[in-house]
């Protein structure tokens, strides 16, 4: 489903990431944890196509993402209020990924009355559900959750994850969850990886 082959990305002559490899099968929920600032969010943005890798390759179902059309991997960010245009109503925000199916909205517990509101009129948790619904368009194969529920209380967190994982399981999507919250990852993931494990052969990259 998702194959990450020794990717690297650099900025101003400094490598932010290098030699990162990872595979993700359909229906899998993989959790990645690691220290702050190691590049987890950069990796997430790259996998979702927001950034292009400077070396290596990311393949979705065996080939690179098409240059046009919706990206097969969709990212849900930590701050939903920044991920929506504040001047758009919820209906329009959702429609950006194509008209959402009623069953999807129902699964994510998005009330029809929200659709005519502005983003400011929803709480963080409610807005994050909207962002997840937008990320789960028909073309999506992989859902990448970068600290998707870090700003929410435990109860809301559980509700959102249950809904998102329900949809992912039903459609056979791969889910990549990035978080500091070990307990959360333990609970939701089918497989867990530490950041160090992504660095393919880190131990052998000794300079001669």
């Amino acid at each position, binding site marked *: 489903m998702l194959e990450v082959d020794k990717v690297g990305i650099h900025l101003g002559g400094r490598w932010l990431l290098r030699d990162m490899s990872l595979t993700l099968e359909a229906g899998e929920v993989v959790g990645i944890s690691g220290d702050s600032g190691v590049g987890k969010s950069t990796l997430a943005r790259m996998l979702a196509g*927001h950034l292009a890798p400077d070396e290596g390759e990311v393949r979705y179902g065996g080939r690179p993402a098409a240059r*046009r059309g*919706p990206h097969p991997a969709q990212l849900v960010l930590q701050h939903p209020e*920044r991920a929506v*245009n504040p001047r758009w109503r919820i209906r329009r925000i959702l429609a*950006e990924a194509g008209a959402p199916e009623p069953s999807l909205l129902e699964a994510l517990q998005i009330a029809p009355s929200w659709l005519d509101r502005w983003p400011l009129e929803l709480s963080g948790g409610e807005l994050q559900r909207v962002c997840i619904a937008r990320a789960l368009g028909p073309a999506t194969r992989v859902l990448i959750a970068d600290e998707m529920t870090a700003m929410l209380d435990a109860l809301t967190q559980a509700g959102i994850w249950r809904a998102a994982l329900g949809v992912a399981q039903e459609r056979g999507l791969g889910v990549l969850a990035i978080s500091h919250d070990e307990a959360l990852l333990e609970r939701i993931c089918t497989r867990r990886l530490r950041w160090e494990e992504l660095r393919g052969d880190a131990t052998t990259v000794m300079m001669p």
Partner: protein
Amino acid sequence: MMERPEMKAATQRKAVPAASLPSGRLRLLVGAALLVAALLGLGLWASLSGGGEGLRTNLAERSLPPSWGHPLGTDWLGRDMLVRTVQGLWLSLQVGLLASLAGTAIAAAAGLSAALLGRTADRIVSWLMDLFLSLPHLVTLILIAFVCGGGLRGVLIGVALTHWPSLARLIRAEAMQLRSADYVAVSRSLGKSRVWIMTRHLLPHLLPQLLTGCLLLFPHAILHEAAITFIGLGLPPDQPAIGVILSESMRYLNAGLWWLAVFPGVALLLLVGAFDRLGHAASALLDPGRSQQ
């Protein structure tokens, strides 16, 4: 001793911030409405009285100083200067409006493409902006109007082409800030094209800046139209814009016909000043950083 009432006023204002804002807004709205009404009245009057009694040559009444019959006097052909001034202002207003709208459109297109169409586009547009900013407006304007062969078209093209760079810079900076927003990245990953993102996500956020920019361009456009017409490269003499009136009056100034130049000049100044104030007030109102002042 002088500071006390001021400090008192300051603390009072702090206590009721909500009350001071609407009154400023209301003042601006009333001012803008009055200005628009006055301009509409001006235009109506100009088009109703166009070619009427006032503009007819009347050699029996030529070169009369201001009087009750002719509040602004008459010119060397006996034409009423009040009617001529109003006609001229109306024409200048139309030219200024067209030119500033065209300039704003160019600025929006240039600023957005510099910010969004990649590094090469940015380099080209920035170079063009620097080029136009490095020359005095009037010099470029004279060149362009000369190349276009004068007339209304030359003035419009000239004013529009010389007045876009400063606004385009602002739009470029704002658009660069907006394009790094998370929702723009999401929109791109949802497969939306650059043009789609530009028109749907960015342009609505830039409308206040564009509106303010257009309003502030307007006085410049009118003044430059008048200037270029004054030196003879603008509107032809049969279209009596303010510039034509002022330029013709120069020949009669040494004959003591001061009213030919003074009243049209003052009228032009008032019009320009009114739009300038409106533009600054609108920018104070629409700019969130300044709207509380």
